[in-house]
């Protein structure tokens, strides 16, 4: 079974790197959606020995949420905000890929230093999870558009999920469902926020959001005291 798990893990890592390399946000959303689906499949494959109902339920929820609902939400907020491309990120795409490759290297070295109490289903689980985590973090901090930052957040969570595969043979359904719910709510809120930010400021450039306070006051004439009162 191990080769299939390894293959899926490598696919997860490749998709994370691809997300780092693409400048079109729509493609980026599709890549992250694909990563979510691969993770769902990976979840079932890694527990093939004891497929239970709640396992299938978690995997199905995961695929539906990360593969369909979240992309749909993001596409909707992209359409409403009218953004197509990540223009001039903080870190260029080429440099991002190089940093991503470096992160992969660091993750592999780190995982050598992190012995786990029990054997994992594959040697690649820990390095891949760390690398995906790093890449998600990189995506989160190096992009300007709010949609791409949300994507970075999802990739980061995917990395944590892979780590969960290594840690618990019996991953508590409750925890997994809780995490899924968390990101769903997170993305949902971000989807609404992106829409609102865009309506207020005609862009979703996160680095311009520091002007939020001043502009709000100017536009709506909210006096200083009002904030203190509330």
């Amino acid at each position, binding site marked *: 079974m*191990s080769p299939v798990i390894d293959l899926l893990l490598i696919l997860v890592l490749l998709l994370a790197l691809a997300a780092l390399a693409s400048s079109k946000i729509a493609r980026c959303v599709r890549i992250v959606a694909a990563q979510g689906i691969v993770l769902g499949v990976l979840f079932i494959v890694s527990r093939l020995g004891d497929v239970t109902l709640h396992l299938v339920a978690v995997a199905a929820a995961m695929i539906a949420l990360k593969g369909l609902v979240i992309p749909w939400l993001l596409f909707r907020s992209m359409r409403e905000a009218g953004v197509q491309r990540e223009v001039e990120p903080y870190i260029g795409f*080429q440099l991002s890929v190089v940093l991503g490759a470096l992160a992969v290297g660091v993750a592999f070295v780190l995982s050598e230093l992190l012995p786990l109490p029990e054997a994992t289903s594959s040697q690649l689980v820990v390095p891949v999870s760390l690398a995906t985590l790093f890449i998600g973090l990189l995506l989160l901090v190096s992009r300007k558009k709010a949609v791409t930052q949300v994507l970075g957040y999802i990739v980061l969570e995917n990395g944590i999920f892979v780590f969960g595969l290594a840690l618990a043979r019996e991953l508590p359904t409750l925890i997994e469902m809780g995490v899924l719910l968390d990101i769903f709510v997170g993305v949902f809120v971000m989807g609404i926020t992106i829409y609102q930010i865009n309506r207020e400021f005609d862009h979703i450039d996160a680095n311009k959001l520091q002007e939020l306070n001043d502009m709000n006051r100017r536009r709506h004439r909210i006096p200083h005291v009002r904030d203190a009162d509330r």
Partner: protein
Amino acid sequence: MRPEALVFQVGAFVLAPVLLGVINRTKAAFAGRTGAPLLQPYYDIWKLLQKGAVYSSTTTWVFRAGPIVGLAAVIVAVLLTPIGKVGAAVAFPGDLVAFAGLLGLMRFFTIVAAMDTGSSFEGMGASREAMISAIAEPALFLGLLVLVLVSGSLSLTGMMGSIVVATWLRTTGAVLALAAATIFLVLLAENARIPVDDPNTHLELTMVHEVMVLDHGGPDFGYITYAAALKLWVFSALIVGILLPVQTGSVLADGGLFLAGMLVVAIVVGVIESSMARLRMLHVPHLLTAAGGLGALAVALALVAG
């Protein structure tokens, strides 16, 4: 080396231009044309060899040496390239470095000969070629390093020989696929194929490889065309060697399978050329960095899984 294997080694030199013909036929089929005959590259080379050469009075011996040194270097590289499971004519530990070095020598002389003409266009092509290959070569070495790690052998023939069906069924299969993808991107870049360079373009401003050889004519250009065919053969042979794990035991069957694999690679290149536009020059380094990233990832995976 067995005598049957020698037949295939000679076959490599004879059959290499067919790959160019197959690529052109594939492109023609996509465009709805009949296309040039499969053997057109042979006719071209034959025609060129019949002609006389014209040398500009500003050029020196470097210009004349370029095509000959290039052809000689790539001929030796073909001798080092294993024909699938049949093996190469020459194999020794570390021959992969010699292999890359020979291709580098060929490139160096093509570039120097182009600069020797003093033409600004050729100088431009030379600088682009140098830039592209400077990024492509680390990717090639990373791809070869993966093969070294997976097979534990330092010679190309040993590497290709140790890749069997079982290698593909373990985790190393995914690693090998990554290495093959890396080397395939290098193939596209090194052989001036779309999306890196368009072999058919005739606008000097956008040409890379073709612009460097504009001033060569007659037999010199024939050598260059034949050397280009051999270079394509060499890279395709690497990819087929990685992707074809089957070993039948009979030299004839192994060689036949290998040739079928080469045809498939040529068709894939043709399909890519037909379905993709050429990348802007600015984006070429992105593609090659991605190739290097894939290679680095494959090396990391090979270190853990191998």
